[in-house]
């Protein structure tokens, strides 16, 4: 080998031994030195010139020899310090869409958010999310957004728009600003400043689904229009009158966490709450109740009146005027009185009279101060229906000159508003997603999506959280707060205002000088300041008269778990999410009771005329006789390609009572038509057929014998035999445990899995053909009497069987077992024979029947560059013809193992969390290392309640279930409440 000198010095003086002469660094130095012109000049030899020339030519050759220039991956020229391509950053922010709140962490890869997790540290959310929050990341990458400011359909610049608006506002006239509930202190400040400039302007808060009846009731009974904090974790006895508090009522994520706390049964302490649900339709919450009483709204009101009177009699309070109810309530009253201070009565109705009864019952039982909280009140649902009604009247009379609306959709959700809005002189809409209201307005100001925006929130008095952008705004949008600031004639940006408010008002006085407080708080995402003081309520007994009208049919309207009030109407993940109870997706429908169906000769998919709307029927076990239920949130007409024309708009059926919007309607008639309408369901058989699939026991039985309901497990364990050597897992053996007591069936995990694993949306037709791609499903079974069945929810995903039937039969070894216990699929190897699908007794494997990406037949969220930005780069997008299934988020497992390895430490139990585990608000799913006897998942498997699905097949699954324990005797009559007063304190 020829000897090279790096410099003339070296030539003269010999090699410099102080540096490492060999290895990569030396080589690099040699190359770099070549480029140093000093060296080139100094050496001046032909050899060096050729080296330099060759180097640059070689570089050019390599670069130009790439066949395809890379178009869509642009590396940083100057890499930001905190960004490492391939490694995610997490930003704490806030989800608040006007209806629902969540404190979240957003996983950002390559400058774009791809996944939402709950913020574990937030005292409000405690790491939980809901299906809607999980799905909201997809709405960021939605084509159906307002992309540029427009006046009368013509695109304008922001300056032009601002000039026009300010001119218009300065002209005077009656100005009304309509926003949803504002829980943001900074936004309140912005609005305050705006109202300073325009003192005659009116600010109305409009909730798509109103809860102002609760505020009105509290104003009447306690003098303060508040929604109290509900503390389900302190309740031993929960009585809910049609409140879907685990589904969509007010703050379901918070409530689910607290509720799950009372439902989990520890072996050492077999105590759990008792949950009684009185309702019309079968809600998700009702499906979890220990005792469910399906009655008409009329009967429910009478029951409430009676309960109130009996409790009042027992506590020495005046009664209200109420007709007697048919259903006996003595047992309930007995339980309530035995749980003074530890009971919680809630009601989902917006009728203030009913809420007054509830407030009164709670007060008389001494629940205010324990399970109800007038200090840390819930700040959501601030809308006042009286104001809203007055606004609509004014609009109708043409009295409103300037109507400014932000992120509300009254044209869709209020029957009265649509035409009335057009009568306003000047209409302006600020919002992110296109909707019916925005399209009626003359001026459209695109707002940021919440992931692009600054902000803050105070969901519960004294609990704050911050909102920060996770991506540069994708379109030409501007935070509506910035618009308002501009029009108020101020100069500051909203971002600065938020920071100012926090550092000067929200921060504790001691920290206001600390420059780092803001950064630390922004990083954590939340801040607790504590309530402002204790209030002792003075109780004004309600004067109500319970005399509900009788009718042949009563219609109940409810916001469904997927679409809620419809504001995320263009989200395909939410449309494809099956209703937790009916398992129907891509449509809304009328739920009818089996008794009514039989009387009238109705069957599923028949079409009835409800007043003047045609709707398909779904027979719903547990639906109260004489009632029909219809989900809100459907029937959007301006939402985007996914949501438009799906289902029927139920909002026109909302009625008014006692000045509030109520969601039951007696003025309905039903008439069968001759048509049928196909319904897409992800599950069509609802009985367990006597098979030990979801095992349950009553609390009493469990106390006597921890193996209650689970004897099959003991039998199966005794019978395990094998010809083959046992599978050994040295190192890690991953397993999952699911506590069926904590699982409420909210389907949040399903959406979380979809977001994490790039699961395709297939549309109604394919769902109907039983080809939904969801890797996880929540099976829902009914047992017993169809008029009031017990309901079971069971999350089912790949069980990662150590003796997997699927692995045996794949001809090309595309599916095999990892040495850590995971059943894997190598997509590149799969030839799609589908033998594994047939041989999986759990039916958890999914086949790619069509090409779902870039296919016009599946025009949801997989066809455009924009919508594909949500894809997780760590997970392959599968090709047509391959089989896929739950991988226990192997990408997360590998990521954390790598982190631990780089940090030279062991993994901590609970550090790795698959998507489903991480976002469950109830903490029902636990993941960990089965080889570690102290891990939470191992301990759950030691629990007597633990069993495996289809364990008699000797599949040896890694997923274990804990039996469901209900706080009731299994053969309980509705009237028999004796001996069921179990409560701990």
């Amino acid at each position: 080998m020829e000897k090279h000198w790096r410099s003339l010095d070296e030539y003269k003086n010999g090699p410099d031994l102080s540096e490492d002469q060999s290895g990569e660094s030396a080589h690099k130095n040699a190359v770099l030195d070549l480029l140093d012109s000093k060296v080139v000049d100094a050496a001046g030899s032909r050899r060096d010139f050729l080296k330099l020339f060759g180097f640059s030519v070689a570089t050019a050759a390599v670069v130009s020899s790439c066949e395809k220039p890379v178009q869509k991956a642009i590396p940083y020229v100057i890499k930001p310090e905190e960004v490492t391509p391939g490694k995610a950053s997490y930003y704490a922010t806030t989800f608040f869409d006007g209806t629902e709140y969540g404190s979240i962490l957003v996983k950002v890869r390559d400058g774009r958010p791809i996944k939402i997790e709950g913020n574990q540290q937030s005292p409000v959310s405690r790491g939980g999310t809901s299906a809607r929050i999980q799905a909201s990341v997809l709405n960021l990458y939605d084509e159906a957004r307002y992309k540029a400011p427009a006046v009368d359909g013509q695109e304008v610049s922001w300056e032009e728009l601002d000039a026009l608006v300010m001119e218009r506002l300065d002209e005077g006239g009656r100005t009304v600003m309509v926003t949803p509930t504002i829980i943001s202190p900074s936004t309140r400040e912005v609005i305050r400043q705006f109202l300073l400039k325009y003192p005659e302007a009116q600010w109305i808060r409009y909730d798509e689904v109103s809860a102002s009846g609760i505020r009105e009731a509290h104003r009447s009974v306690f003098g303060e229009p508040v929604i109290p904090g509900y503390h389900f974790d302190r309740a031993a006895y929960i009585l809910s009158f049609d409140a879907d508090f685990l589904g969509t009522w007010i703050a379901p994520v918070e409530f689910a966490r607290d509720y799950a706390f009372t439902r989990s049964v520890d072996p050492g302490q077999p105590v759990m709450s008792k949950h009684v649900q009185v309702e019309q339709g079968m809600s998700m919450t009702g499906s979890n109740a220990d005792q469910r009483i399906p009655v008409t709204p009329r009967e429910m009101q009478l029951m409430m009146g009676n309960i109130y009177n009996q409790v009042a009699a027992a506590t020495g309070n005046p009664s209200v005027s109420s007709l007697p109810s048919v259903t006996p309530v003595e047992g309930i009253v007995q339980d309530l009185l035995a749980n003074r201070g530890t009971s919680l009565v809630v009601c989902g109705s917006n009728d203030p009279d009913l809420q007054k009864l509830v407030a009164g019952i709670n007060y008389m039982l001494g629940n205010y101060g324990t399970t109800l909280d007038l200090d840390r009140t819930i700040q959501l649902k601030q809308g006042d229906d009286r104001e809203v009604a007055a606004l609509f009247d004014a609009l109708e009379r043409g009295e409103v000159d300037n109507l400014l609306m932000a992120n509300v959709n009254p044209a869709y959700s209020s029957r009265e508003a649509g035409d009335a809005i057009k009568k306003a002189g000047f209409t302006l809409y600020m919002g992110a997603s296109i909707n019916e209201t925005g399209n009626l307005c003359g001026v459209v100001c695109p707002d940021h999506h919440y992931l692009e925006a600054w902000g803050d929130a105070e969901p519960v008095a004294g609990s704050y959280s911050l909102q920060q952008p996770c991506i540069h705004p994708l379109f030409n949008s501007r935070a509506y707060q910035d618009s308002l600031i501009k029009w108020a004639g101020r100069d500051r940006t909203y971002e600065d205002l938020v920071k100012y408010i926090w550092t000067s008002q929200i921060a504790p006085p001691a920290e206001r000088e600390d420059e780092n407080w803001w950064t630390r708080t922004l990083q954590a995402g939340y801040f607790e300041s504590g309530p402002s003081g204790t209030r002792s309520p003075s109780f004004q007994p309600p004067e109500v008269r319970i005399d509900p009208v009788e009718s042949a049919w009563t219609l109940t309207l409810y916001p469904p778990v997927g679409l809620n009030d419809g504001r995320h109407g263009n989200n395909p993940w939410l449309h494809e999410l099956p209703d937790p109870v009916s398992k129907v997706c891509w449509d809304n429908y009328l739920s009818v009771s089996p008794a009514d169906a039989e009387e009238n000769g109705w069957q599923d998919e028949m079409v009835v005329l409800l007043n003047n709307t045609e709707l398909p029927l779904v027979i719903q076990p547990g639906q109260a006789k004489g009632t029909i239920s219809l989900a809100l949130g459907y029937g959007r007409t301006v939402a985007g390609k996914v949501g438009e024309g799906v289902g029927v708009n139920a909002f026109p059926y909302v009625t008014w009572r006692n000045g509030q919007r109520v969601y039951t309607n007696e003025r309905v008639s039903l008439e069968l038509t001759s048509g049928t309408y196909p319904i897409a369901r992800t599950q069509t058989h609802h009985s367990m057929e006597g098979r030990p699939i979801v095992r349950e026991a009553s609390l009493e039985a469990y106390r006597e014998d921890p193996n209650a309901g689970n004897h099959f497990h003991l039998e199966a364990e005794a019978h395990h035999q094998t010809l083959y050597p046992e599978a050994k897992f040295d190192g890690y053996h991953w397993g999952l445990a699911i506590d069926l007591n904590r699982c409420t069936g909210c389907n949040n995990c399903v959406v979380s899995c979809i977001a994490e694993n790039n699961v395709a949306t297939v549309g109604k037709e394919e769902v109907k053909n039983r080809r939904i791609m969801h890797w996880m499903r929540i099976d829902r079974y009914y047992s017993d009497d169809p008029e009031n069945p017990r309901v079971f929810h069971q999350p089912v995903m790949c069980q990662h069987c150590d003796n997997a039937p699927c692995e045996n039969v794949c001809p090309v070894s595309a599916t095999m077992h990892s040495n850590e216990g995971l059943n894997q699929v190598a997509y590149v190897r799969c030839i799609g024979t589908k033998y594994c699908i047939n041989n999986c007794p759990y039916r958890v494997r999914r086949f790619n029947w069509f090409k779902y990406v870039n296919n016009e037949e599946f025009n949801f969220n997989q066809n455009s560059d924009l919508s594909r930005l949500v894809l997780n780069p760590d997970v392959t997008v599968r090709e047509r013809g391959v089989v896929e299934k739950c991988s226990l988020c192997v990408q997360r497992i590998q990521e954390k193992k790598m982190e631990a390895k780089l940090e030279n430490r062991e993994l901590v139990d609970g550090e790795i969390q698959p998507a489903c585990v991480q976002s469950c608000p109830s903490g029902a799913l636990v993941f960990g290392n089965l080889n570690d006897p102290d891990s939470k998942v191992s301990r759950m498997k030691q629990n007597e309640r633990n069993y495996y699905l289809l364990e008699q097949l000797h599949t040896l699954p890694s997923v274990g279930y804990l039996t469901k324990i209900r706080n009731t005797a299994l053969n309980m009559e509705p009237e028999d409440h004796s001996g069921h007063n179990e409560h701990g304190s």
Partner: protein
Amino acid sequence: MYNTEVRGPLILGNKSLGRITTDITAPLYERPKFWWMVGLGISSIMMLLGFWAIYVTIATGIGTWGVNNTVGWGWAIINFVWWIGIGHAGTAFSIFLLILRQEWRSSINRAAEAMTVVAVGCAAIFPALHMGRIWDAFFILPYPNTRGPLWVNYNSPLFWDFIAISAYLLISASFWYLGMIPDFATIRDNTTSKVKKAVYGFFAMGWRGSVGEWKRYEGLSYILGGIAAVLVVSVHSIVSTDFAVSVEPGWHTTIFPPYFVVGAIFSGFAMVMTLMILLRRIYKLEDFVTDAHLDKVAKILVFVSLIMGSAYLTEIFVAWYSGNEYEIFTFFHNRITGEFTIQFWAMFIFNAIVPQLMWFRKIRSNLLVVFIISILINIGMWFERFNIVVTSLSKDYLPSAWASYSPTFVEVAVYLGTLGIFIFGVLLFFKYIPMIAISEVKAVNKFQVKKGKSEK
């Protein structure tokens, strides 16, 4: 043995050897009959339909079929097993009866073997087509590679299928072709058409009919026959393990290998019966495929139908006796009664009950009835495969996953396409290849000629 009166003459009509040649090769020299053209036309249309359906399946995806995430196999696999079953005709006829030295097979075996080759070819379309990524089908080949090396999963019945069916196709085709060499030579030597002489001469591979060649021919027949005999049992046993090796209720049963093999022979013989009745009527070959032949086949059908019936009853009994709730549900609530009750009873009646009518000589000798029964048997066998494939998958362990299945037009079109291929192939066979084994029949005829004058 060849001279007994009991069995009767195998070839009727006192035919001379020359006459045999003329009779059997007559169709090759005639102009194509009108019905033959019509048949060819219809089957071509069916084939085109099938090719379109195959194109759609490969280009758009298995989503164009009716299968789903619960019922992952449908018409494709039903038809696969059905065609393989039918394909067992030739092998059973040629080889079982060869080994059992049943001389009477000689007038039927050639047609049966031809049918086998076409049927196995039709069958082989389905396992290839039902793959999601057929362009990667070569993954199933255990070829040496540098990726590990990465081999296939030898535990998987689908791999066994691949080996078994490839072997079966190869052996059947070889046996069929090699058996025809003397006949091609006969045609080559008798024909006046230059084209025919060239083509048949090529395929005759220079056969001269020397004693040495005959000795080798016989030896080869027995060797190939021996291999193929094993294959008859093993191929369909392997196909049955597609189901038996799984955990599905109604599939996981040790009765399947013999059950499938017997069923295959059953449907194969039934198809042979169908074709033979047609063949002899159309080509006036009653002297070669005599009533006695058909009688024997009918008796075999009766016997096998009894076996099928007892197999069904065994399955049902064991399902009940086992006390296994999933098996009981599958048989009693999802086959005998329930959503698929029609398919179950079609299978049972057509396979186990209707053929029993042929106990009666009156029925057995009424060829129209026998013809209908043979078709019903094949329909019944199709329903048997439907029963096995669809009912078990549709409602298995977890009721939440229960789902129905119904075929789409594309699936039905593929099936019609394979029917078209079958009819097309058989029609071509009728026209261009002697449908009765000339040399073998001659060998049998020689011993049947009574003392007396014979026609030259």
